[in-house]
């Protein structure tokens, strides 16, 4: 079965520009997560979707970050405008359901560099 797909793999932008990341979860997976991983730290949840509804976005900086999951499948994460501190790896993960017994499957991530 195909894994979680993410694009692009790398992105370099200047501060104040906008950027968007795309994630395609494993087919049939209802839950989708976006994590931010700053260099030298573990991933931190930004937003969690259950189908096309938001379950948890408490740690999403909503003044500049937005995310959507169209038709409960693919998802996009957008940053506008970007700041230097947004430089990080953005990981997408999916799981069959919400229950913690379900394993989360991670994509390869997108490395963002803001200059």
């Amino acid at each position, binding site marked *: 079965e195909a894994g979680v797909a993410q694009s692009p793999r790398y992105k370099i932008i200047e501060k104040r520009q906008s950027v968007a990341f795309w994630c395609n979860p494993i087919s049939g997976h209802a*839950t989708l997560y976006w994590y931010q991983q700053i260099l030298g*730290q573990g*991933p931190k949840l930004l937003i*969690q979707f259950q189908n096309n509804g938001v379950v*948890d976005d*408490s740690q999403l900086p909503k003044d500049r970050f937005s995310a959507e999951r169209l038709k409960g499948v693919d998802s996009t994460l957008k940053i506008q405008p970007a700041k230097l501190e947004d430089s990080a790896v953005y*990981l997408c993960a999916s799981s069959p359901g919400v*229950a*913690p017994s379900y*394993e989360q499957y991670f994509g390869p991530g997108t490395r963002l560099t803001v200059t």
Partner: protein
Amino acid sequence: AQTVTQSQPEMSVQEAETVTLSCTYDTSESDYYLFWYKQPPSRQMILVIRQEAYKQQNATENRFSVNFQKAAKSFSLKISDSQLGDAAMYFCAYRSRGLYGGSQGNLIFGKGTKLSVKP
């Protein structure tokens, strides 16, 4: 709020030897899951092993095993017969056992331990 602490930023092991990575966590919950994830330079997070807090028996997956001490809130990973392919960042993670969504559904990670394997 739950926290996960990995006190070893870097560890090194000789090929074929055994190494133990440490992890402690803080929670007021009595039921939860603990995980060890491996992240190679490719950045893909790979699940290594999972422990359910209500199970007293330590989880084992081939060369990987854990020492789960619930009272001490300690969850260490032992890698036996280390191989060159084991070199990676290792993250300890916590997840609440709640059946429904919200913050119970996501993983809380430590800062990671970088493991080097010497030939």
